């Protein structure tokens, strides 16, 4: 047992039913080190870290802290060992301010908020956090909420920090700030593990990289001695081309014209504020923005699923005739002959019926077809078989509930069905979220294929690197307003990042 490791996990195995989420994994981290835990979705990163933070207990294997065996049965016990984890979904009380959230759940006998605030300030200045302690959580941005989560854990005395996909919701600028803080903490001798699948961030911030693949430990390398290509091969198990093809469609034409689109939610909050843009045939229009900037509302409004307060959405037919879609239900839109396909963010809660098989899900687009009261099963069945073959959907059968399929296969079923309708407009929201690299590239290729068929593709993405490579134009949303529509071939990631946080109506417009 080497004394210089802060945490050492040895032969950790965790099973869920017959699924082996972690298979004999050994991992170690020193103090004053940033370790990146890299792996595709479903490779067992979060499971492994959940065992370190006391959420799960390992079925086999031991954990040592500073060479002594420890048994962590709850997050509270994890804190007593100085281990704290920042989860992907923050657990904060919206109506409390920063300090109140930070001391929440601590049992020190009596509550002295003033003293607590002083200690919190001291932590903030030591590591370079910028935070307004009296602010209520509901007034905060995602990045500020994340800051509170980190401070909360430091306040509890953690010196081993685990961050689960911390940059997934941050802009490039916020990511840089986070990295600065992480480096400060490292200098202070803390051990930091970040779970991620973004290679460029791994290269930038970590000292060492440990790679998991399908629940197995593949190896650890020093960041200075590796490169993205090599890491990808470790992650995927074979070499992958990391380039996205971006052909040019010869004759783009207007397909969907949105003008002054304004939407207000049930509580009277403006979700979209006079959004205007044109989606052309043979173009992928990427939509960038911090999560919750109106992306979901935009697509749902176009699909007829979100009430529109004012503005116009016009579908341009092949003959140039324009059709107003505002005020039409999804059924009416389809009956009007508008070929619109929509891959929503919530795949199982909106795009698919989880309890049904592929056939039942194909019927979601065709169940009305045919006369009489009975449903036709033959065509959807054939479509299901086709999609299963063409997109390599891994399922025990076309009637196996899609809820039980892996995320990638679920998305293949959904995208496959939407493309099968030969749409004129294809809208996708976070189409590759949670998918492995191979499936992600399958989806990118499918979208590009559709674009070259003359489909107007609208692609809401969260990974700016991908958006810049895949899209032709990028529309940036900031707080429900369009802060710019830019050429994806010339714009830089930093420029888009700035537009995501600042509304600058006159700059950067095409």
């Amino acid at each position, binding site marked *: 047992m080497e004394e210089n490791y802060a945490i050492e996990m040895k032969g950790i195995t965790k099973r869920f039913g017959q699924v082996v989420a972690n298979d004999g994994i050994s991992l170690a981290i020193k103090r004053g080190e940033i370790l990146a835990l890299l792996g595709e979705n479903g490779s067992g990163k979060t499971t492994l870290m959940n065992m370190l933070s006391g959420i799960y207990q390992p079925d086999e294997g031991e954990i040592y802290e500073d060479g002594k065996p420890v048994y962590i049965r709850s997050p509270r016990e994890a804190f007593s060992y100085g281990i704290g984890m920042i989860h992907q979904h923050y657990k904060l009380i919206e109506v409390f301010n920063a300090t109140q959230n930070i001391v929440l759940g601590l049992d020190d006998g009596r509550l002295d908020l003033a003293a607590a605030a002083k200690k919190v300030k001291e932590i903030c200045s030591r590591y370079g956090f910028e935070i307004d302690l009296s602010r209520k959580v509901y007034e905060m941005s995602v990045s500020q909420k994340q800051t509170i989560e980190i401070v909360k854990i430091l306040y509890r005395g953690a010196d081993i920090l685990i961050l689960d996909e911390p940059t997934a919701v941050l802009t490039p600028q916020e990511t840089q700030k986070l990295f600065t803080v992480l480096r400060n903490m490292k200098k202070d001798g803390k051990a930091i593990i970040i779970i991620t699948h973004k290679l460029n961030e791994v290269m930038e911030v970590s000292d060492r990289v440990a790679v998991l693949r399908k629940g197995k430990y593949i190896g650890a390398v020093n960041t200075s001695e590796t490169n993205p290509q090599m890491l990808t091969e470790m992650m995927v198990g074979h070499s992958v081309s990391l380039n996205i093809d971006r052909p040019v469609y010869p004759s783009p034409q207007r397909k969907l014209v949105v003008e002054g689109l304004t939407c207000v939610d049930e509580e009277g909050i403006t979700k979209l504020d006079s959004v205007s843009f044109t989606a052309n045939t043979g173009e992928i229009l990427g939509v960038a923005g911090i999560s919750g900037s109106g992306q979901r509302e935009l697509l749902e409004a176009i699909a007829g699923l979100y009430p529109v307060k004012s503005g116009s959405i016009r579908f341009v037919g092949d003959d140039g005739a324009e059709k107003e879609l505002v005020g039409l*239900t999804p059924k009416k839109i389809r009956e009007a002959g508008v070929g619109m396909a929509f891959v929503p963010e919530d795949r199982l*809660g909106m*795009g698919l019926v989880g309890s049904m098989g592929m056939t039942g899900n194909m019927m979601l687009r065709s*169940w009305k077809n045919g006369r009489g009261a009975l449903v036709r099963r033959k065509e959807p069945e054939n479509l299901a078989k086709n999609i299963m073959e063409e997109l390599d959907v891994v399922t025990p059968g076309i009637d196996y509930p899609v809820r039980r399929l892996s995320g990638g296969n679920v998305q293949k079923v959904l995208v496959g069905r939407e493309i099968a309708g030969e749409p004129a407009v294809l809208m996708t929201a976070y189409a590759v979220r949670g998918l492995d690299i191979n499936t992600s590239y399958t989806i990118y290729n499918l979208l590009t294929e559709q674009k070259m068929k003359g489909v107007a593709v609208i692609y809401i993405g969260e990974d700016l690197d991908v958006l810049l490579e895949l899209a032709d134009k990028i529309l940036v949303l900031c707080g429900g307003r369009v802060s710019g529509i830019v050429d994806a071939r010339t714009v830089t990631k930093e420029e888009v990042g700035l537009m995501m946080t600042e509304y600058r109506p006159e700059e950067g417009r095409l």
Partner: protein
Amino acid sequence: MSAETRTPLIRLVKRTEMAKGKVFGIRVASIVIALILGCIPMLLTGTDPISAYGVIIQGSLSRPIYIKQTVKIAIPLLGCALAIAPCFKMRFWNIGAEGQITMGAVAATYFALFWAESVPHVVLLAIMFITAAAAGGLWALIPAFFKARWNTNETLFTLMMNYIAIGIVAWLQGGPWEGRKGSQLIPMFQDSARLPTVLGVHCGWIIVLALVFIMYIYMNRTKQGYEIAVIGDSVNTARYAGMNVGWIIMRTMFISGAISGIVGFMIVSGANFTLYSGVADGVGFTSITVAWLSQLNSFAMIAVSMILAVIEKGANTLQTRLSVPASIADIITGILLFCMLSSEFFINYSLVFRRREKKEAEA
């Protein structure tokens, strides 16, 4: 301290998929366990459980006349379970079948009382059937409309509607439809308003068996059945697919209420030959048990409603023969429901005991 002593005594582990045979085995085992647990209340009342179960079976199935009476109990249970299944599939918690049965019975009774002499037998029954269905359907439509329009809570709404329906009958009993003054009773139906018997039981059993097939096809093969299944899974998905959710909720509730109304008609016209405020007699609630235990499968409902009918009929015999209170039937039914629902838990999860794990590790 060793790792073993630190792991919890019992842990839950989610199962993946279980073989169909094994699932069936667990369900059967849960019934057996329920029957064993049912011995406890019997012992507490000082009864020998084995002879008590013997009496239950004897009293419900040993002679044709008993079987007929048992079937008579099962008919409304089965019919009503078929009625509420589409609502439950849609996750619309209709617990107002009791009131829908009652309103169906009211409509049927009106024609039985006032049209019996002017209309021929078959026509009268047809009118009673149709108006009972319409009355039950309309009664169910009220909460459905409020749900669709203002998203009111259907559970409370349907429940409250039961008491209104029962209140209406109580008023009719003591007021406009009262037979002999002061009797608080509605007169018995004339023969022409009574359902004919087939094989010794009123022909309602043919109607409910036909409904079993019809509802099976409706739920599994029709466009409307598909819509119901999609809404039950996710309302957003249904909207996304272009379904008019509010309209479908109202339509499904009308169908559900209509079937309950028909059950009400069968009760007054086939079994009671009169109307009183307790006409539904808890069928609307017991049938929820039937529908759940059958996992909303029409054919399984036949078996489950028969099992519950056997227990109920047998418990009556138990009361007369061994002077055990008949409410023992409710206790056994409750235990049965508890065991069968918890069997679902064991189908989805398995328990891992600390000691077993230790042995495995050593091996």
